[in-house]
């Protein structure tokens, strides 16, 4: 357990290139807030949905940048800096090591989501029932964690494919569309809804909406379980990919080129 | 005779902040008062160890850096206030393989810089063809630069530096990382340029390059010019000395220090060459130190032992070793 947390925090500081204060504020706090405002006003203008829909959805979504990039960075940068070989050769469980790497990013995502929701609600005048707050905190945490696991999967893919940043960037853009945060799911074609159902954030966003609507934690629980399941699936996929690529690199003796 | 480059008491201090939580201002005096006079058509060498101030000096002369104090003129124009006039007349080539548009062809790179450097449109085509021929890239000019070898990139750099037929060419360590054959070709290209009347200021830390090419050489170290003259004149710094070279395996620093203190010894230094070391001992010509040196090396396995006359390299070592090499000063 100590390995999971301490190792994670150190790697987080070492590998997080946006770790300067201004970069953090500009990229991770201000940018998602503007994204929220953009879609909220667009929604108002086009009469798609009300502010609550956009504020809550985009607050959950605001964690994606930090979490998806974070998860990708956690693995991809190790390769870039040539430290991957050392990590893979460590006798500890690799899955645990990388899961530990993802944790701080998820925590960061949670922080961002809370910030975005708070400021977004203040700016646009949304009142959140106090009873919903604990449930929302859990929802944001689950969403961030599942997002970070998704990032880990992308990072693991990055071990094989050079243009992992392209994949991360496109994934982020796709999440704007497919998670049903900005276009209500009923307006999306069936196949997009299915894909969205297997992306992180989708279920967390619907859980958050139920909570803000005052439906109570019980009503949100099924969505939360689904979100957690999606995250778990990505964590397993990431672990399988890492094991696979590691075995392959040993066979080809190409650890350095990993 | 008119001067191509004249510098008076050039100084350059770099100020940087280090630390984030506890920032400190650090000022580094990279160049501390350089005077230079380079005649038109001269091939002038600036020789010095890494960090001696060579590149800083060149960048002050070619307008990329503003001197902290002092003045410099190139072709009679001030490098701070008359940059455009200076830039029209100079070319700059630096070592290494950066500074090119990698995804463009060599030809595109040259076309772009020909336009930027003001080569008349009607002359561009012929000029570029001439230069491709000169640097041996003819036939490869349509390939993307990302596919070029280091030597080819270096030659493309040179072609670019010559596009506008500069009166003064600054060559900053052009042979760095270039293989020996390419370096030889490079030297002949540079010699050819000088023969056509171009003034060349060359920085290098390769002794042979400086000795072969340069009319005059300035040895710079610690941000100051320590010695100036022709290669033969510089050798006087080591005159009255003789040199003992001992091939050895496993000489310790303590032993070298001990040898340095022997009577008659002026300098002692060790260089690692493959699996062996070469101990070079400079001594006064009148003293034969060989017996003392070998006694000091008692117990160390030795190879060839030779005594010879001093070379430019010995002179260079003498000059550079006399300099305090710690230019950093902290100003709180």
């Amino acid at each position, binding site marked *: 357990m100590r390995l999971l947390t301490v190792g994670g925090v150190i790697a987080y500081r070492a590998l997080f290139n946006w770790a300067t204060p201004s*970069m953090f504020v500009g990229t991770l706090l201000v940018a998602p807030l503007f994204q929220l405002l953009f879609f909220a006003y667009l929604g108002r*203008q086009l009469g798609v949905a009300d502010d609550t829909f956009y504020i809550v959805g985009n607050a959950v979504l605001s964690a994606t940048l930090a979490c998806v990039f974070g998860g990708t960075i956690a693995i991809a940068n190790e390769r870039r800096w040539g430290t991957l070989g050392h990590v893979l050769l460590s006798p500890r469980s690799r899955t645990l090591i990388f899961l530990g790497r993802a944790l701080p990013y998820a925590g960061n995502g949670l922080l961002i989501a809370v910030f975005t929701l708070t400021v977004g609600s203040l700016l646009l005048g949304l009142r959140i029932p106090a009873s919903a707050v604990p449930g929302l905190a859990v929802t944001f945490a689950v969403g961030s964690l599942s997002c970070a696991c998704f990032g880990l999967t992308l990072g693991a893919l990055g071990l094989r494919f050079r243009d992992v940043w392209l994949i991360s*960037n496109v994934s982020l853009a796709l999440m*704007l569309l497919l998670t049903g945060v900005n276009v209500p799911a009923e307006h999306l074609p069936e196949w997009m809804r299915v894909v969205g159902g297997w992306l992180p954030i989708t279920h967390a966003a619907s859980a958050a909406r139920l909570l803000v609507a005052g439906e109570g934690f019980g009503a949100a629980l099924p969505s939360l379980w689904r979100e957690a399941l999606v995250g778990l699936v990505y964590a397993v996929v990431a672990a399988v990919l890492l094991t696979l690529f590691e075995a392959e690199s040993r066979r080809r003796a190409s650890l350095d080129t990993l | 005779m008119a001067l191509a480059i004249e510098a008076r008491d050039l100084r350059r201090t770099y100020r940087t902040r280090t630390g984030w939580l506890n920032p400190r201002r650090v000022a580094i005096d990279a160049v501390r008062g350089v005077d230079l006079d380079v005649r038109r058509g001269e091939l002038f060498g600036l020789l010095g160890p890494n960090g001696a101030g060579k590149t800083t000096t060149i960048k002050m002369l070619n307008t990329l*850096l503003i001197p902290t104090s002092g003045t410099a003129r190139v072709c009679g124009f001030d490098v701070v206030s008359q940059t455009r006039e200076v830039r029209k007349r100079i070319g700059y080539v630096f070592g290494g393989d950066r500074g090119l548009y*990698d995804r463009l062809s060599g030809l595109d790179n040259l076309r*772009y810089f020909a336009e930027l450097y003001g080569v008349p449109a009607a002359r561009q085509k012929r000029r570029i063809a001439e230069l491709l021929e000169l640097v041996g890239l003819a036939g490869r000019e349509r390939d993307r630069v990302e596919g070029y070898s280091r030597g080819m990139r270096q030659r493309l750099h040179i072609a670019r530096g010559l596009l506008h037929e500069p009166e003064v060419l600054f060559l900053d360590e052009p042979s760095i990382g270039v293989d020996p054959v390419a370096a030889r070709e490079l030297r002949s290209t540079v010699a050819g340029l000088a023969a056509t009347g171009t003034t060349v200021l060359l920085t290098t830390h390769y002794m042979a390059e400086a000795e072969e090419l340069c009319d005059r050489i300035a040895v710079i170290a610690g941000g100051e010019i320590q010695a100036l003259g022709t290669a033969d004149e510089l050798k006087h710094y080591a005159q009255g000395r003789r040199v003992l070279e001992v091939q050895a395996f496993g000489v310790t620093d303590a032993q070298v220090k001990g040898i340095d203190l022997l009577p008659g010894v002026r300098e002692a230094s060790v260089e690692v060459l493959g699996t062996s070391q070469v101990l070079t001992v400079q001594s006064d010509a009148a003293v034969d130190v060989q017996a003392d040196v070998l006694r000091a090396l008692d117990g160390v396995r030795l190879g060839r032992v030779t005594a010879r006359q001093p070379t430019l390299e010995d002179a260079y070592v003498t000059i550079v070793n006399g300099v305090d090499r710690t230019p950093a000063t902290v100003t709180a």
Partner: protein
Amino acid sequence: MRVVRLVALGTLLHVKQFSRSQFEIATALIIPLVQATLAVYLFRAGTEPHRMLEAAIGAGMMAVWSSVLFGSGGAIQTQRWQGTLEMLMLSPRPPALLIFPITLATAVTGTYAMVATLLWGGLVYRIPLDIAHPLAFAVAVPAAILGLGMFGLLLASTFVLVPNANAVNNALEYPVWLVSGMLVPVTVLPGWTGPIGAALPTTWAARAVRESVTGAGPVWPSLGTCLAISAVCLVAGAAVMSYVERRARANATLALA
């Protein structure tokens, strides 16, 4: 004449350099397609399902702004990383003339996305290319590109003065889309954003292009305003650029080391 030649050749070569990076091209094409799709569904879900073509073109204009924002905002830094900044600055030309072709190239490459979103809209969503004033459209798009390229010079020169300009870059994408009404003019915004929008060349560029597509207004006043504001930006950018060059020579920040 020489200046026009220099800018034209420079722009062409920078477009070439940019276009040969698979990563940049893929990012610059795929993400706008996703955004165009998003716009299409948003319009359909809302009250404006008949304005599909505007959604596609709006997404294209958004991509042009992203390209200018990231490309121009980081232009000087990119040249510094490539080691080409010193080589550019050694040219006996005003520094603005060396950077402007780069910022113009970032606007030009933004049009790839515009073409892509229109094709995407036509092929996937059967959006017909019913442009009200084709001639005006054919003029407005290149002129808007030119304007945004000029605006880019101001971004390029001021952003090098801002510490951590990347952070500013990342934050400025959405607000300009919103305030300029790139996808759709947003009338529900708070009143104080109006003057900001009116001062941005992006607003007038988007408006001119939209007017040429819908025929909802005369194109030329908007286009003229766009170019006038852009020209002011170009002059201001050139002045800042000269200051930046001198400062960089004094502070030794032209080279990476």
